């Protein structure tokens, strides 16, 4: 196995292509959440069950939002070619993501909602589907962390970090919407 090298330079056109592709994927993903949220309003109109754990949900939201700080930091550091710093930031963001995921698991397991009820079933559909996206996000952040630790990113090619962190931001945004729609409205 040859020693890993840093990534080759990307042309401006390639960067545009990759962003375009990512936005298309996010468009498709957004359709998923639009459908899921629409189902929630169809099923349960504007009622929110009193059994939702707003405190836990709020904590999860807080951790997600805070994770954006090291995530964005990693983007900045990767742009400068600082793999060491980027790696550390990605690691922190990843740990926070894992913590948030653990919170979601605890919530799903402990919440006293009946999965057969109108609100309950949409709640589990949404949190379950979103949880799958958190898992993907964690894998992405782990992969980026591992690549940074191997010094793959440089000033001319750090798109993976930008794209991966954008996906993570999407995951966080979807959670914030989910929190508002399922815990509050």
């Amino acid at each position, binding site marked *: 196995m040859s020693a890993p090298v840093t990534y080759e330079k990307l042309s401006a056109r390639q960067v545009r*292509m990759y962003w375009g592709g990512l936005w298309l994927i996010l468009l498709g993903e957004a359709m998923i959440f639009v459908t899921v949220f629409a189902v929630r309003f169809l099923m349960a109109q504007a009622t929110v069950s009193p059994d939702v754990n707003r405190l836990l949900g709020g904590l999860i939201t807080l951790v997600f939002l805070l994770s954006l700080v090291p995530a964005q930091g990693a983007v900045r550091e990767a742009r400068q070619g600082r793999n060491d710093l980027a790696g550390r930031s990605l690691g922190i963001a990843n740990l926070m993501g894992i913590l948030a995921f653990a919170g979601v698991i605890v919530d799903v397991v402990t919440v006293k909602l009946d999965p057969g009820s109108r609100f309950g079933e949409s709640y589990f559909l949404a949190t379950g589907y979103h949880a799958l996206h958190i898992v993907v996000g964690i894998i992405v952040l782990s992969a980026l962390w591992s690549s940074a630790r191997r010094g793959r990113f440089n000033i001319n090619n750090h798109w993976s970090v930008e794209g991966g962190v954008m996906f993570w931001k999407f995951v966080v945004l979807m959670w914030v919407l989910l929190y508002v729609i399922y815990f509050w409205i």
Partner: protein
Amino acid sequence: MSAHAASRPRFVEIVWPILRASVLAAIGYAIGSFGIAVIRGGTWTDQLSIVVGFVLGLLGWLLGGGAFEAWVRPWFGHENTWNEGHGITRFFRYNTDHKVIGIQYMWGAGLAFLVAGLIAMGMRWELLTPQLDFFTNRTWYNTAVGIHGSLMLFSVSVVAIVGGFGNYFVPLMVGADDMVFPQVNGISWWFVLPGIMALLLSPLLGGFETGWTGYAPLATTDEAGQLLYYLGVFSLGVSSLLTGVNVIGTAVYMRAPGLTWNRIPMFVWAMIVTSVLNVMWVPVVGVDMMMGVMDRVVPTAFFGAKGFPLLWQDLFWLFGHPEVYIIMLPAWGLWLEIIPVFSRKTLFAYRWAVIGFIAIALLSGTVWVHHMFTAVSAARLIPFMTDTEIISIPTGFIYLSLIGTLFQGRLRLTTPMLFALFSALNFLIGGGTGIFLADVPSDFQLQDTFFVVAHFHYTILGGMIFGWFAGLYYWFPKFSGRMYNEFWGKFSAWWMLVFYNLTFFTMFVSGLEGMNRRIATYLPDLTNLNVFTSINGFLFGVGFFVPLLNFLISAYRGKRAPANPWGARTLEWMTSSPPPHENFETIPVVREDFYGYGQVKEPEQGLFPNPTTTRPTGPTTGDD
């Protein structure tokens, strides 16, 4: 790149990635299903065990085929050590060359078509008599109906043209050296076989009763094979989604110099529009499938009597109607590609045809309730009848363009041309009979009868499959490098036309005579119609061996094909048959549109070798 030992026998060298993928799939399934069984104290055929088993099995399959070395390790910062093979070994492993992927899709679609077609022959054998005699019970018949429909709609109709031709020819037609995201493209094919296998294995769990439309609440309470339906369709949907992203990206970013938006070939326009529909609507049916799984496994109550039984149908058809346009648009694109070539005439009303495609795509998301006219409240009837009727107007633009091109042309009735024209004639009947179904009063009688079965077979089989064959014969010289046998090609076109119409036209009559859909047994007064349908159906089915043998034999023994046997003008014909690995020796520079016949003299049309133009840098390996 690590090399595999030259002393290893050839056969193993070819198949080991698929074998490894299968083994890892089995291991993944075993871990998932037994793991869940152990954790929850159940058996490994419990519903949750099946779901988790399938997911882990799918993961194992993807990794085993090559994604582990080519995707996962590079993500985590290692080198990409995957050998994409050479010669025939490329097709049985993860490979990023769009031409290889296109052929993988074509084979996948072909095999699924063969299996689903044989199932249809079984169904028609059953329907030779009013009683149940071939299938041991009606559940197996319903399962056959479901597998036939699901395979045809999810793993043939979209996979054949969108996956097969789309992958192979879109980069060539825009003058690119590959798709925009070759790695994503490579993995997209690997979702197809698990989807097909899931559907084919559903009988092991008792089959499923619902047909390809999976209506709840029947789907919630019937046999466990329904789970494999949900999971199989989900997997096939992922493949469409990834292909869609690639096609759009390639058309937007990878066009050769001079290929402006108003010069884009009709097939590429059709593929772009199709791919936008795929990206938007496949996720919706994915959510529907997920909810179906949850209603069985958790269980939730989305679709039960206390929930919203019609919600399944709404979400399904929100996807389902755009799906049929996803199926037809590429075929329409093929008509408008092939007909100018074999009429030696400029494509008529190019702009209107493109507007037609785009308008159809925009409207397609607004008409879905016409599948549910007999189920919904009165308030939804007129709006959806209106939209459904209106969509015929842009569809007409395609015929406008087609007819204007044929008129005063010089028509060479070669096999591709015959299939394209037959496709247009069949689709005229199919689309025309759609008017009877769009009209609500008329639909109240016709819904769920064989009239509907005839209508959609005319559009999908008569339209898209005939269009697929037009494309296969048109492009066979390009992707195989050899010419097929023209006599047997024409023979197959006429045979298929005659026996197809004799089989399916009769179904309009059966439907009007009170034969409803998805029944294994019927009342004796319908016997004659069904016997007539079945016998012609068998003759129609048998006819498919002609093109199959024609293609297989010609691939090895056919005359070598020149770069441009048809005298066409689009870019794929400006390179060798088959194209070299990088598609074009030098980047084509497009100087005028592709449909202007009789106007510009050789050699200035199309390709102009220009050594001073630098190749735009493609995607690097180890990256996405």
